[in-house]
């Protein structure tokens, strides 16, 4: 099978004020795969995603999506290309209902039947959302909000999905079902996934390839299976 780079990041440099957060990060995400980005707090994982989706400006380097240079395009232009970012902290619209949140996800779409079908897909994926579709999103638990954030992202009909810390602050039982759905989204819909996760065990278990980030640089770049057996990675990130 021909391997196609869906997302290609080259020497990405980002800074906040005078502090440099990324010192030339390079990574590749093959079409149809799940790639994970692991590392300690402050390693630059979220910053990498924010720079890819246009939320912060890159000072140097290139972001290529589907062969096109999308570096420093505004976020709405990047979503329009089918690259969708589920941000850390979920960021659901607290005062909007679950259904309105899903509609916001489909903001750029004009195909009404397709939108309705994807909303149905979201409800089937997370039945909890259907039960609460007329409820304000802010009244739901963290796990339910994470489900909503993922379903909302699917509404934009992405070809590549970037998930930032989907397990953060969520009851373990819900983490499992959320990760099952992430894998299902990748398999059933062929959506390429770039997953940022502090829970390295979990992330490496579901992904094909992994990058370990440390203080704004890529420390390891290998298949997830290899990273799981790498003694250094095991000692530092997988709890021995």
């Amino acid at each position: 099978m021909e391997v196609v780079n869906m997302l290609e990041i080259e020497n990405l440099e980002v800074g906040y004020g005078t502090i440099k957060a990324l010192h030339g990060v390079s990574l590749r995400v093959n079409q149809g795969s799940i790639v994970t980005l692991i590392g300690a707090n402050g390693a630059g994982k979220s910053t990498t995603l924010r720079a890819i989706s246009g939320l912060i400006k890159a000072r140097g380097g290139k972001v290529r999506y589907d062969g096109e240079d999308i570096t420093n395009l505004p976020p709405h232009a990047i979503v329009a290309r089918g690259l969708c970012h589920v941000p850390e902290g979920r960021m659901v619209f607290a005062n909007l209902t679950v259904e309105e949140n899903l509609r916001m996800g489909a903001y750029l779409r004009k195909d009404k039947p397709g939108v309705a079908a994807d909303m149905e897909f979201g409800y089937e994926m997370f039945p909890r959302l259907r039960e609460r579709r007329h409820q304000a999103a802010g009244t739901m638990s963290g796990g339910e909000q994470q489900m909503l954030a993922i379903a909302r992202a699917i509404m934009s009909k992405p070809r590549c999905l970037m998930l930032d810390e989907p397990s953060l602050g969520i009851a373990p039982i819900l983490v499992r079902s959320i990760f099952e759905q992430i894998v299902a989204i990748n398999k059933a819909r062929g959506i390429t996934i770039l997953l940022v996760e502090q829970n390295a065990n979990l992330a490496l278990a579901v992904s094909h390839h992994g990058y370990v980030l440390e203080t704004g640089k890529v420390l390891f770049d290998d298949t997830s299976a290899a990273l799981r057996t790498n003694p250094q990675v095991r000692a530092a990130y997988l709890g021995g």
Partner: protein
Amino acid sequence: MQGQRYEPFAHHFPLSQFLQQLLNGLFLGSIYALIALGYTMVYGVLRFINFAHGDVFMLGAFTGLYLHKLLGPMMAMMPWPVAMLVILLLAMIICAAAGILIEFLAYRPLRDKPRLNVLITAIGVSLLLEYTAQLVFGATQQPFPVIIPKGNIGGLGGLTVTITQVIVLVTAVVLMIALRFIVMKTKLGMAMRALSLNPTASALMGVNNSVVISFTFGLGSALAAAGGILYASLYPSIEPFMGVLPGLKAFVAAVLGGIGNIPGAALGGLIIGVTETLVAGYSDTLGIPSGYRDGVAFVILILILLFKPSGLLGKAEREKV
């Protein structure tokens, strides 16, 4: 008088007078409400107070005046409701464009700067509009054309309500219903709400936040322009500083209702209008000279900031830095 029970307050507070004042307050309050909506919507999407908003209200009144002059011969041929509608809609469109332009030229370049910068800029824009208006329109009072026929509505049992007052209230209510429809039922309205809740997330949904912000300014300015024309129809004498006090009072109305809360702004406007009119109407009884009516709104502002800073319908929100 013989055999009649002594009613100490009947003389000072006849019911009909009270109802009359209440009505007068309602008409004035509906205009404050229209202006307040613009403050609150802009605050919703940008978290800043557009102090130039009251001057867009003034601009609305002058646009109405000049449109009437410009379209004079045509106006005479139209039935008055059509003439009123034409002037109202054209002035709303022109002022919406002005509002969008103000945001684009003065506020957008400061979007990523500290919020204080844009707040001070808004005061500057306000002064610029007032003194430019003085230069262009002249500093003296100008009569606003009488479009709505003079006369009272009969059959209200001793209450005096003019046709103008009815038109003011009806127009204001229709505009508020239209706004509610736009905000709750249209895609741009939903984007507005989403943006005000979380601008990062709305951008990630594909919303072009700048477009929505422009739209919000246009919408708010159109309502302020309508307010200006309605106000000038009630008090048909306009001048370049006419927007200062109603603007400030409408700002208080927005804070009273809960800044950022759209129904709150409408409610706040009505409360300020009614309270102000009642204080003026009962100035003898209350021992407050009627000239102090303009102070009422600010007493309310102080009270609300002391006891319920989030406003009547607002939710407490922690300032994000």
